[in-house]
């Protein structure tokens, strides 16, 4: 299970970083979402992986899982959800006002004459 959790966090992070380095705003947003998923899983795992153990005191059990990461991850989820909503709206507004979805505000090359000729063929 450790390998599975570690591998999924690693893959999510790698995907997030790769998308974050794209030029257009939509992949960047998806990249931040992937990164926030990765970090949420990571925070869960920081209290160590434990199966079938309660986080709340119960006289019948002796072993507990760490309850604090669950509280932390809840905070992190709320914040990253709000931030994702904000950046989506922001990217839409920026696209509508500037007419481009490039994060540097630049424009993609307009189709060249050769491209247009290719379309016609």
């Amino acid at each position, binding site marked *: 299970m450790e390998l599975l959790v570690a591998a999924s966090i690693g893959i999510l992070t790698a995907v997030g970083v790769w998308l974050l380095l794209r030029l257009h705003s939509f992949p960047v947003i998806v990249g931040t979402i992937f990164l926030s998923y990765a*970090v949420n899983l990571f925070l869960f795992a920081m209290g160590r992986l434990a199966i079938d153990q309660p986080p709340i005191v119960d006289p019948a059990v002796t072993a507990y899982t760490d309850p604090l990461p669950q509280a932390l991850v809840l905070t992190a989820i709320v914040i990253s959800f709000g931030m994702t909503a904000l*950046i989506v709206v*922001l990217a839409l507004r920026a696209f509508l006002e500037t007419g481009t979805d490039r994060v540097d505000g630049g424009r993609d090359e307009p189709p060249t004459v050769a491209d247009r000729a290719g379309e016609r063929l």
Partner: protein
Amino acid sequence: MTPPLPSPATAAIVLPIVLPALTAAVMVLAFRHRRAVQRILSVGAAAALLAVAIGLYAVARDGDVAPYYLGHWPAPFGIVLVLDRLSATMLVLTAALGLAVAIHSLGGWDARGRHFHPLLQFQLMGLNGAFLTGDVFNLFVFFEGMLIASYGLMLHGGGPRRLTAGLSYVAINLTGSTLFLFAVGLIYAVTGTLNMADLAARVATVAPGDEALLRTGALLLLVVFGLKAALVPLHWWLPGAYGAAAGPVAALFMIMTKVGAYSILRVYVLVFGADAGAVAGLAAPYVLPAALATLVVGAAGVLASRTLAALACFAVVWSMGSLLVAFGLFDHAGVAAGLYYLVHSTVAGAALFLLVDVLSPLRGRAADRIVPTPPLPSAALFSGLFFVAAIAVAGLPPLSGFLGKLLVLDATGAAPGAAIVWTVLLGTSLVVILGFARAGSTVFWKTRPAPAAAAGPAAAARPRGGPVAVCAALLAATAALALFAGPVTAELDATARQVFDTAAYRRAVLPPQAAAAAPGAAAAEATP
């Protein structure tokens, strides 16, 4: 073992967070569409915040480190706010800057979009929380509170340029927040605590096998703080964001970069400081070289700037370099000098941003570009203000920038590699002076005759008294900082001494048994 109930003085520690939060909520809920009421509330609350901050400074000044246990939970379990001289100094600076920005915005900026004043108050709440908290995860939460408000403020006024810059600003800070969470996760996984005082006691006793994880977490945290402090190579977002933001917003953001510097100081002295065993002095090899690179990049940017806003932004980057050169020494003299420079650079940088904001509309289509224009109305006043601001920012005598630079040079004199530090500091200072001289002479002296038809817009825009008075007041504050340098440096010297007395911090925050587990206190316990 519940902690003692707070006295009225220590109960006031929570006020700098509660007061702006309530003010902002009342403004949004009850006075949403009534700007006049919002203005009165905002300026009133900022003034009250300044009064509270000064009161708290008085408490911190003659007392020890004062904790405030939220919800009355004992220390390592609940969240704790901690007031010491360093956090009180930052509170006073934040409140003073907040008041100046609130008054400046009455000149028209707050009417160019909605919710300026509530966002300003929320930002003040986040800043004050970040300066007061004694818990690493709570620091993350207040960072987020501060950033969320700053996203709104950054976009205030709208327009394509601000939206594009805002998108990058939000994206880079989201990434920074994710890194912060990774770092917090690593530190918690190894130590099992996030309370700074408790962490300070535990990092030294981490199992050797976990040391690499702790080191990784601590250095990730340095990346996050470096990003906030615009430390090279993490500074690229700053000129775009601050340059596109409205004038008063950029002035308020001056304190945001200082949050990064404050966090570096707090965490790498208290938690990963001299007592931290294997992870002691973790940040020291990185901060100073990065700060020197920041100086070079900032100075080059100042010289290459084509607009006054860009000039001010790169001057901020450069001043963060000077500040972190001092903090990067991680010794008493360096921190005392750095704190003086921190206060100075916040005030002077804010004055410069506000001045550019007042000046730009008067220059018609040239706006803030560094090009010759027809003579300005009341050019003598503005060229005078720009001259004073440039002297303050670039660090020429007689204003506080010069003294700050001198203190930093003095503190670095005994450090290894002082020759390099002095060369870079003085060399980049010269470049910054050249940059400001070039900009000032182009903008104010190289006038060209007004074309008859285009005289309209520039002449129609009259300077407004209020915002100009705020700039002048901030510049007067840097002069006062120079005039009263003796008492101010004595105060900051005591502050720096308290910053390094980490044992006192742990004793004040933690209950006696837990504090005794700290490495410093353990020896004292064993002797009787």
